[in-house]
């Protein structure tokens, strides 16, 4: 069996296609384990996995925790408000402390882009980026690719439309890096104020209307629009956003008939998508969540067995 080249999972920007393929392949057997009914593997026995979250999260954190436990690891959480972080300890010192307690993998979410990269340069443990600022959310990108692969049988040559607040989205960036690497044709659509400058250089086509991006799409990844973005002149109101950028049945008709509908969650019903779209049979939003556990099991397994190889 192949070994992962990378010691850390910081982003898909710098992940090789070999590593991506290995993770996707391994995730498939992990999903079998999940489906088997006996969710207890020996893969991570004797390993310590720490989740260090500086930002709130429900699904990502739980998904990692369950992935660790299903494979037999000792898992612990660091809750930011109750730790010395609240006393003003630097990330460097917090990271070193966790490292010295014997962590094999630190799973980290942070509001600042590059924080996991910074930590990884200063400690021995493997670092998994569970979302850093607006930069990347690589495990989400991988689980999205896994979902596409499972449903479509391939990624190469597919047309993927990513819609919404591209500017602030780490999910968008990870998906763009990963999908373009795997040969998909990616289009992004956002209001001009939420379109990152020079994003075309990442190898995507950009539009200011979701209609154009949707034409003949095989996959639609819709992003969460955060209410907090209102009042900063990025867009006037949620109402106006929903009217011009919301995905409804009519707009969905522009995509291919068998297009997959995905969303990293949590969804704002009636804002970026109507409930009828969210709940339609082409929607794989719930399946994504399940795949997320499988993909994270695969990543934890591959990272911890690296040192044995």
């Amino acid at each position, binding site marked *: 069996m192949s070994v992962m080249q990378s010691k850390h999972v910081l982003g898909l920007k710098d992940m090789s296609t070999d590593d991506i393929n290995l993770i996707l392949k391994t995730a498939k057997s992990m999903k079998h384990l999940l489906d088997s009914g006996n969710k207890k593997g020996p893969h991570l026995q004797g390993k310590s996995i720490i989740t260090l979250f500086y930002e709130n999260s429900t699904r990502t954190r739980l998904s990692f925790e369950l992935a660790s436990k299903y494979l037999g690891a000792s898992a612990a959480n660091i809750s930011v408000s109750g730790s010395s972080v609240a006393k003003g300890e*630097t990330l*460097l010192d917090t990271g070193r402390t966790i490292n010295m307690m014997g962590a094999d993998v630190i799973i980290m979410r942070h509001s600042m882009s590059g924080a996991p990269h910074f930590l990884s340069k200063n400690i021995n443990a493997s670092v998994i980026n569970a979302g850093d*600022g607006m930069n990347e959310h690589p495990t989400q990108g991988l689980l999205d690719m896994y979902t596409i692969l499972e449903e479509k049988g391939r990624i190469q040559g597919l047309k993927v439309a990513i819609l919404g607040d591209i500017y602030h989205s780490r999910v968008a960036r990870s998906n763009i890096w990963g999908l373009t690497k795997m040969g998909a044709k990616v289009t992004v659509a956002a209001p001009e104020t939420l379109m990152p400058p020079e994003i075309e250089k990442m190898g995507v086509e950009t539009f200011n209307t979701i209609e154009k991006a949707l034409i003949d799409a095989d996959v639609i990844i819709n992003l969460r629009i955060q209410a907090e973005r209102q009042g900063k002149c990025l867009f006037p109101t949620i109402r106006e956003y929903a009217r011009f950028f919301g995905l409804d049945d009519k707009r969905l008709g522009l995509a291919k008939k068998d297009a997959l509908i995905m969303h990293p969650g949590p969804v704002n019903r009636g804002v970026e998508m109507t409930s009828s779209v969210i709940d339609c049979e082409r929607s794989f939003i719930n399946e994504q969540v399940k795949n997320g556990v499988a993909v994270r099991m695969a990543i934890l397994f591959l990272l911890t067995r690296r040192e044995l190889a």
Partner: protein
Amino acid sequence: MKLLIKNGHVIDIKTALNEITDILIENDRIIEIGKGLDAGSTGDVIDAEGKYVIPGMIDCHCHLRDPGYEYKEDIESGTKSAAVGGFTSVACMPNTNPVIDNQAVVSFVKNKAKQIGVVNVYPIGAITKGQQGKELSDIGELKSAGAVGLSDDGSPVENPLVMLRALKYSSMFDITVISHCEDKFLADDGVMNEGYYSTIMGLKGIPSVSEAVMVSRDILLSEYTNAPIHIAHVSTELSVDLIRKAKKRGVKVTAETCPHYFSLTESACENFNTLAKVNPPLRSEKDVNAVIEGLKDGTIDIIATDHAPHHEDEKNVEFNIAANGFVGFETALPLSITYLMKEGHLTMEQLVQKICINPAKLLGLNKGTIEVGKTADITIVDINDEYTVDISRFKSKSQNSPYNGYKLFGRAVYTIVGGKPVVRDKKLVI
């Protein structure tokens, strides 16, 4: 005590000297310039054959961090760093603690520099009290105490009325306002240049227009008040264009840039490299080319270091919270020679204008030339000395430089301050 500099290629702009000749110094003064001079039996002789002998370099924009942030730098370490970089005079910015916004702090800096400084130190006073942008500092008193310029560097004077009045008032005292041009609303919470690299790292961008909007405002205010203004650390194509046009219509605007704006682009920030974080941020290649063009055609008058030492703990952190700025003294000359002279953009005469005489003019210093009767502040430069930047050998207290490992050409081999060599053969001798 006599000191003779023999056979150097002497360059002086004011006297149009550009030839191989000797310079004889007695005590702190230049007493003779000509071929075949003799220092007498007890005199000290420096053989400058194959080297340029230029007026002592003057930095009009640095941060010595003293008083208040001595853990980053102090007047002793900062002036040592300046000396090995070839500078004989430096003007330090007032964002100290306390801020240099009154005559007492000006005196403190001057006195401390007199006692332990290795090169001449000239404080720049704050435009506004506490650099808060609200009330004018005691500008007349600052000038009387020895301040050579006015700046709220580090932050812009946001209120245009405050800036207009600062320009009017300071012009009475013949002291120039040095403007840190940045529109804070446009810069928002950006941490690097806005463009492809900010996009791919998911970092908030600072658009180049945030500088240019303020350059434009300050040019208009200078034009309206007929008071001079100096634009600090110009980093963008838009700013260069605005300054060029303003100069054409006779506005009393001068400008500086720093070595990092003609030698590095935003790509240096890749992989969240906090050593490349600076404000204004490193810009695009287009901006770098425009800055070089501005230096060539005289739009940009001065090369300043913006020497900004920071402790390792302020750089070895997440990119968002890392401190802005680089150690500048020790790489400014080599970077100018490597990226401007060796590339054929500037001649040594033009470089001397930008690092000697123009900063002297801006600060109102009777310096920047090699003339009989003048104080002997002289830098001897070997433009062919090739070396690798090693931050661990910096004389500065700090090591925050993006240039570690760079192979550069050209160094100050001697730095002579008031007739006294403080650097000999590239080594600090004080």
